[in-house]
């Protein structure tokens, strides 16, 4: 085999290595394996659905169907975006529910993580199970990417 042939084989081996295998998002998403960092997915998997861990769906309380929505926040499909992104919290003065691009300053994340600065209870208010770190990480990613209505 010629020198060029050897180099070609080495290059082919190296190029093959370029096809990296990534971690699976479903491994992070835990009890909601289909959860993705999009609003439609968060709506389906988090807001609308009680997951396999027993974590309660959000719309059980955050709905105005026959009731006053908790925290004056409606998370029903088609309405959640307008109630979250860039909207001031009705519970904590100066806080914004979702600051596009900035999960650390989004009050929604503070409530889901049960941070010390929240008013009222950690969400869901049932006392647990709460969202897993992975589920919250995916919601944060949706916010990091601009909290689009996607």
């Amino acid at each position, binding site marked *: 085999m010629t020198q060029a042939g050897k180099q070609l084989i*080495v290059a082919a081996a*190296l190029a093959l290595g370029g096809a990296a295998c*990534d971690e699976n998002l479903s491994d992070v998403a835990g009890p909601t394996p289909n959860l993705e960092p999009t609003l439609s997915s968060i709506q389906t998997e988090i807001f609308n659905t009680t997951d396999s861990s027993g974590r309660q769906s959000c719309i059980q309380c955050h709905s105005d169907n026959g009731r006053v929505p908790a925290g004056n926040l409606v998370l029903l499909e088609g309405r959640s975006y307008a109630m979250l992104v860039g909207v001031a919290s009705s519970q904590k003065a100066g806080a914004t529910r979702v600051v596009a691009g900035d999960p650390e300053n989004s009050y929604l994340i503070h409530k889901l993580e049960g941070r010390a600065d929240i008013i009222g209870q950690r969400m869901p208010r049932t006392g647990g199970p709460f969202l897993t770190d992975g589920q919250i*990480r995916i919601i944060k990613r949706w916010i990091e990417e601009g909290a689009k209505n996607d």
Partner: protein
Amino acid sequence: MTDLVRRTLFALVLTALSVPSAWAQTPTPEEEDPDLEVNVSQPDFNLAALPTNLRLPKGKFAFRVTHRFSRPLGEGDFSDLLADFFGFDSGAQIGLELRYGLFRGAQVGINRTSDRTIQFFSQYDLANQQSFPVGIGIWGSIDGTNNFSDSYSPALGAVVSRELGRYGAVYAHPIWVDNTNPEPSELVDDNDSFLIGVGTRIRIRPTVYVTAEVAPRVAGYAPGDALLSFGVEKRVGGHAFALNFSNGFGTTMAQIARGGTANDDWYIGFNISRKFY
């Protein structure tokens, strides 16, 4: 691409790489192979972690053990450090590496570290100082976590060396490493790293060297601080013993790209290598 397909393809390529050495090389008497001679400027295949351009003779093996003790040297006071025998009493990340000379200027190897990472690597000597101002080795590797079954991080780059007569060598390592971020790609901005390692091995006595290396990430995912190591090394025949100090435990390319822990944490470690020729 499934894991099975990926591993099968990788095995096929490794096999293909091994074929030319069997059929196409003109047998060279061992005594005529200059790669068998001791290179006092590049006496070993690695600095602390980064590779050198030392050629492995065709058909020969080399083995290396790496230890990175997990006790930070700055923990507690000096009497605590002495009581722990400078960290040697603590647990360690251990690496076992075997490499083989496929054909003149080409070597392949496998390195497994005790965090269950397995790295396959190959290096090809593209140019050396006999015909070029610097030596250039092409580096390719792939790390796989959990015994090469979970997350794969391929790396591609070059090892550029300049031998300083018989007094050692200096190195630069422009290397791209993919999938360095442990999170899924959907959750991260950067999932690869481009590092430009620099290092040196200086011969201070006929068989004693000091080494230093740092691997700053100049683009992409770059958590923590750049992995930084320095050490002292003694060559004894086919063996090399190196005592080193690092701000992290990395020895595979993806581990190196993920950086050290912090500049405040330093760890003692050692490498022992053996050439079977």
